[in-house]
């Protein structure tokens, strides 16, 4: 890690994004916005989206590419959340239980997902995209038919089928956000939230220190060589994919408690792309990713989005935020696809 930081090179997309960010901050300053409030919010946004971004790292490092099948893990997490709400478990304990439920479900989903991805080695990205896309309508059946009892999650009329948006207000919305708040002047630092984020980072860091973790990196860097040295490549990839899926499930749990709602049905459809673009903005090439890159990328992107919303409203075109967001997301992914292959060809 230390070595890596010394060798860290800033690349074009980061320069562009940073300049853009500075320009936005200046603009916000000119428009007389409250920068401290924005800073507070940016810290929450970092963790809210950050864990989903972190979940990409094991798969990228195992050579299974950018995880366009992120909806698989997200849906596992959503089931966990729904179970916790169905059993009416509230407070921090409810949140922890939702993590446990989603852990179990994501282990299973990740195992199946990994088995499929092992069959499509080298083309995981396109296969993952459509596995994710087709898993969502399949799960829509589940959301509609599942016999949950809590009226607060069901459609008010008919009483069958989960609502597209389930409020967590009476359960565990913002439990992490509000835990151990540290006041520094008017700045609020959500220590509890950061502690959880840190735990996930440390877990990933420690995973790559273990024997399996080192083998994962070796497989990602040179599959042919790893095969010769006797590593069971399919098994190692499977482990990395399962870990990615589990962290993605945790990611959506944290996201939902910050957002205050569980969003079901087609909502996970477009969640993979922003997460992938974040790790790419952080400087990853899509072939290898570090925790630092995921954190930096998420922070840059989320702060930028946060700043564009009030500015776009100020110039009377509120749609501009969303357009800009998608433009940056897909632009950076396309850039990464192009760059990665140019490097690949040179070898």
């Amino acid at each position, binding site marked *: 890690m230390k070595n890596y930081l010394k060798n860290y090179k800033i690349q074009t997309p980061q320069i562009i994004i940073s300049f853009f960010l500075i320009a936005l901050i200046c603009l916000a300053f000119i428009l007389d916005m409250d920068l401290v409030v924005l800073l507070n919010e940016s810290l929450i946004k970092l963790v809210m989206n950050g864990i989903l971004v972190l979940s990409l790292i094991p798969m990228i490092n195992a050579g299974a590419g950018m995880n*366009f099948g992120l909806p698989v893990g997200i849906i596992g997490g959503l089931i966990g959340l729904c179970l916790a709400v169905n059993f009416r478990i509230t407070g921090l304990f409810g949140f922890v239980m939702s993590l446990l439920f989603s852990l179990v479900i994501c282990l299973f989903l990740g195992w199946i997902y990994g088995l*499929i991805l092992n*069959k*499509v*080695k*080298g*083309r995981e*990205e*396109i*296969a993952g*995209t*459509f*596995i994710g*896309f*087709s898993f*969502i*309508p*399949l799960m*829509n*059946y589940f959301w*509609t038919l599942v016999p949950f009892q809590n009226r607060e999650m069901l459609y008010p009329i008919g009483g069958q*089928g989960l609502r597209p948006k389930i409020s967590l207000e009476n359960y565990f919305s913002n439990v992490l956000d509000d835990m151990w708040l540290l006041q520094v002047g008017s700045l609020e630092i959500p220590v509890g939230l950061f502690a959880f984020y840190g735990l996930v980072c440390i877990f990933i860091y420690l995973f790559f220190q273990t024997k399996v973790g080192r083998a994962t990196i070796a497989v990602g860097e040179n599959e042919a060589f790893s095969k010769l040295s006797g590593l069971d490549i399919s098994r190692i990839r499977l482990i990395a994919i399962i870990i990615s899926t589990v962290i993605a499930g945790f990611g959506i749990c944290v996201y939902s408690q910050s957002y205050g709602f569980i969003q079901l049905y087609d909502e996970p459809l477009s969640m993979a*792309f922003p997460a992938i673009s974040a790790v790419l903005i952080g400087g990853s090439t899509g072939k290898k990713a570090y925790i630092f890159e995921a954190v930096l990328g998420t922070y840059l992107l989320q702060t930028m989005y946060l700043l564009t919303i009030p500015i776009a409203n100020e110039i*009377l*075109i509120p*749609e*501009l935020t969303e*357009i800009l967001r*998608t*433009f940056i*997301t*897909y*632009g950076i*992914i*396309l850039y990464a*696809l*192009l760059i990665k*292959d*140019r490097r690949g060809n040179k070898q």
Partner: protein
Amino acid sequence: MRIKDGTDGGIINRVNRFVDSEHLVPAVFLVLSFFAWQFSGFSGAFVFNQVLTRFIRDGVLVLSLIIPVVAGMGLNFAITVGAMAIQTALLLVINFQVEGATGILSVIFLGVLLSVALGFAIGCVLNRVKGKEMITTIIIGFLFNSIYQLIFLVGFGTFIPVFNQEIILSRGIGVRNTVDLGMYRNTIDKLWLLKIGAWEFPIFMILVVLFFAAGIYYLLNTRFGHEVKAIGSNNEKAEVSGINVNMIRIKVIILSTVLAAFGQLFYLQNIGMFDVYTAHLNADVISCAALLAGGASIKSAKIRHGILGIFLFHTLFIVSPQAGQNLFNNAALGEYFRSFVAYGTIAFALIINIKNENK
């Protein structure tokens, strides 16, 4: 799973030949749509007329996918870019209030010009990501969608002068969500309409789609077509035998994009209402799924796969919401089934094809 065909027994051979996904997938679709039709309670004539409408509406879009598959570039999800090109041309022409035949001709001229330029750009990009064309085309499609939105939601009224106030939002910036195509609606659909009882045959448009199909068939049998097939079966070999692989690939994508532009034009004139920001969004997935339903794979596609696929896929598409309503008392379930079939067909084809390739 397949047993090597040998001298022992013709039955195994015949079974093997049938179990091939080229036959299996259409067979599954046939069975599914038959049962869904039975449960939907629609009359045969109604379903047939609807499917025929879909055939003239989506036919050329599906056909536009064939050449890239033959060239070994997989499913071209960037046909949405061609669709956006013709929509851009349409909006510009409506903005400048060019009407009648001049209007339609200028839409086609502008649209083709734009699609050639965009197709060239996409082709150049795809030449740098060989082996990852499909994921790249998906991302290109999404990226262009946001550029398209940027132009029409933000650019119109700020950078682009507005001549036709009817299509602009009341705030003066951005195009409305729907633009009426009243003057173009069903102008050519109803040409040579043949009615036999409740069955309707829009002969002219069927001939147009078949004309495009014949054109692609002819093209694949010219020298250019043989070169396309050569790079599809083996890139390096084609390179050695003196074919300019990169140039052919660019031409293939240009052709596909232009065809998609025509396809979207037929689609829009058939629908008659132009949803500016959503009309093109599912063009790629629906068309790809239809092509695969007809028995194509990501490695080989023929005209007959496309034509058969449109009929099978759209029959299922038309009847499944009503079948869901009748079976489970919930139309949404049929709706989910539709999207699952669309995405699932593609996912299934990808997994099976790549798995076989890796062996």
